[in-house]
């Protein structure tokens, strides 16, 4: 297996009082060494559920998970979906690691930063306390925290938001993971600090040759750091491709709608934003056909009634660029590329 991570046909279903919620429906994503793969989507699109599945954090007693999530560790590989829990624990944090969204609530307020970091190492290297402390200091300086010796003895409340996010990154890197999952790593941060953190992630990736799975809703962040992009809507991937494909010749109406609706610096401010009408559907009562159909303005270009009645497949003329839409791809390619050009100027 060349890839570090291979998600195949992942389906995640939660039971709720109102019925079953299919949060993730047939998602396939792979991550190779040194590559940044982004999942973009709005709240409820299934991006975080996907990322939590990869480190096996769903409660198996209630959550139904099918498909496979293969994670490579040297010569062997493990399927997170079916592997026993103790086996997953030995992978979690060591082979696959995660940076959580909210640095304010993800650190324990009662423990010193240094010991929280060391703990992450001790889980996989029991008893090696001195080594763990050394590694903690090393990681703190790697993520750009000045005076690590002093800071390691401080508590989370003595750190600013940006500094805490650096600590979260340091913690995720304690065991030199092959794959790093970053779930909205900069959403809680200010733009100037976001720029620092994104730069840090990029530098670390270059040095450590990590694969990064980046979960975000911010198209600007994606444009800045991603190599490949998966756009999710209502639990499914609606488009995937290289970052340039997605931003300059989107093929899914939803991707196009998103790109057109964001205000851009430098574009003329007096023009109205081109909002996507309506709201995302409830995951309990998804439309039978295309989930985006009720909000889509290109329905008339597809065969009659197909959008309402048939679920579109993830298809494409090239292996790398695929999308879900009933409108013929040639038609979309020309039309959407022209529209995105128009939105840019």
């Amino acid at each position: 297996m060349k890839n570090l991570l291979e998600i195949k046909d992942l389906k995640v279903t939660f039971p709720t009082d109102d019925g079953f919620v299919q949060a993730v429906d047939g998602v396939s994503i792979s991550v190779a060494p040194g590559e940044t793969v982004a999942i973009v989507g709005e709240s409820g699109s299934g991006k975080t559920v996907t990322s939590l599945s990869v480190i096996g954090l769903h409660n198996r007693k209630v959550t139904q998970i099918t498909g496979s999530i293969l994670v490579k560790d040297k010569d062997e590989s493990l399927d997170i979906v079916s592997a026993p829990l103790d086996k997953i624990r030995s992978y979690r944090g060591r082979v696959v690691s995660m940076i959580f969204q909210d640095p304010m609530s993800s650190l324990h307020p009662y423990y010193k930063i240094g010991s929280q970091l060391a703990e992450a190492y001790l889980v996989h290297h029991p008893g090696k306390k001195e080594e763990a402390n050394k590694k903690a200091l090393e990681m703190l300086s790697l993520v750009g925290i000045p005076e690590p010796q002093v800071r390691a003895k401080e508590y989370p409340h003595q750190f600013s938001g940006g500094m805490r996010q650096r600590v979260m990154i340091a913690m995720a890197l304690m065991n030199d993971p092959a794959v790093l999952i970053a779930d909205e790593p900069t959403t809680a941060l200010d733009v100037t600090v976001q720029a620092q953190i994104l730069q840090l992630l990029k530098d670390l990736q270059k040095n450590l040759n990590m694969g990064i799975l980046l979960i975000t809703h911010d198209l600007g962040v994606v444009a800045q750091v991603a190599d490949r992009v998966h756009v999710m809507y209502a639990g499914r991937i609606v488009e995937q491709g290289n970052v340039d494909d997605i931003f300059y010749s989107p093929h899914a109406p939803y991707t196009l709608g998103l790109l057109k609706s964001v205000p851009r610096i430098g574009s003329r401010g007096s023009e109205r934003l081109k909002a996507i009408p309506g709201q995302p559907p409830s995951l309990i009562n998804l439309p039978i056909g295309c989930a985006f159909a009720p909000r889509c303005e290109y329905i008339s270009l597809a065969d009659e009634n197909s959008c309402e009645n048939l679920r579109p497949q993830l298809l494409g003329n090239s292996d790398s660029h695929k999308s879900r839409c009933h409108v013929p791809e040639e038609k979309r390619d020309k039309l959407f590329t022209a529209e995105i050009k128009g939105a840019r100027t």
Partner: protein
Amino acid sequence: MSSPLLSVRNLQKYFPTSRNVGFRKEKLQVKAVDGISFDLMKGETLGLVGESGCGKTTAGRTILKLIEPTAGEIIFEGQDITKLRPGLMTPLRAQMQIIFQDPFSALNPRQTVGKIIAAPFEIQKVTPEGGVKKEVAGLMQRVGLNPEHYNRYPHEFSGGQRQRIGIARAIALKPKLIVADEPVSALDVSIQAQVINLIDDLQKADGISIVFIAHDLSVVQHISDRVAVMYLGKIMELAKTEDLFTAPHHPYTTALLSAVPQPDPRGERNRERIILKGDLPSPINPPAGCVFNTRCWKVQEVCRSKTPELLTVGKSQVACHFPE
């Protein structure tokens, strides 16, 4: 030039706080807003941008006298309202409204939407022509809500719809001034655009003046006529939107603009980014001289001793000893 709807002069808001020093308590002050001045014209939108902790929200609330200013003047339609007693403020409140950031906590969960939107009429004791109910239904229609949902509760609405409810409530009394405090930052991208368009339309139709507080520069650029950039309680740069975004004069504005990632991968690859070092200093003990001096790459000796004033540079007003 016509007289401004709102003039703010040297506005300060210090919050008291304390620190234990041995057995003694030392009194300190958080300088949340530290001497800001600006004018707001009729029908104008002024963007107030800055990072968390820069005092933009406090500024917005102090302008409306939701919190009492420490010093300075707030002049609304020629009347100094700085020292006005709460009782005398009430009739003026019909003229000045606020839209809150978080649509989930800004609405009373135990009141129906109809009651929430009708609250301003009740408080101001006015009965609109045709009755409150008809007026509320009309307002709901205007902000894109179905008037049939009059008797529903906030939890039955999505985030974007709740923000629309908040907007309907804010425009109910046809105010002249609205402070919009991060009205779209809690919303998803596709919904954000809908709400921005709505605010835009309502303003054009009614000629409302808006103070638009946000941290997202792309949104501010889109909606504002002029923009004020705040840092540690002070205005660093105040200019027409176009001038600010095409020719920023303050180093902080430049850094802020360069930090915003744009949905344009090719542009991002070739972009030179100014990465600011360090974090925002504490507003309890702001740096002497220019407050930005600890993170500025153009810092000189004078920046550490003398506070720069907001002066005219080109077409903009800039508080910097070495403007670009």
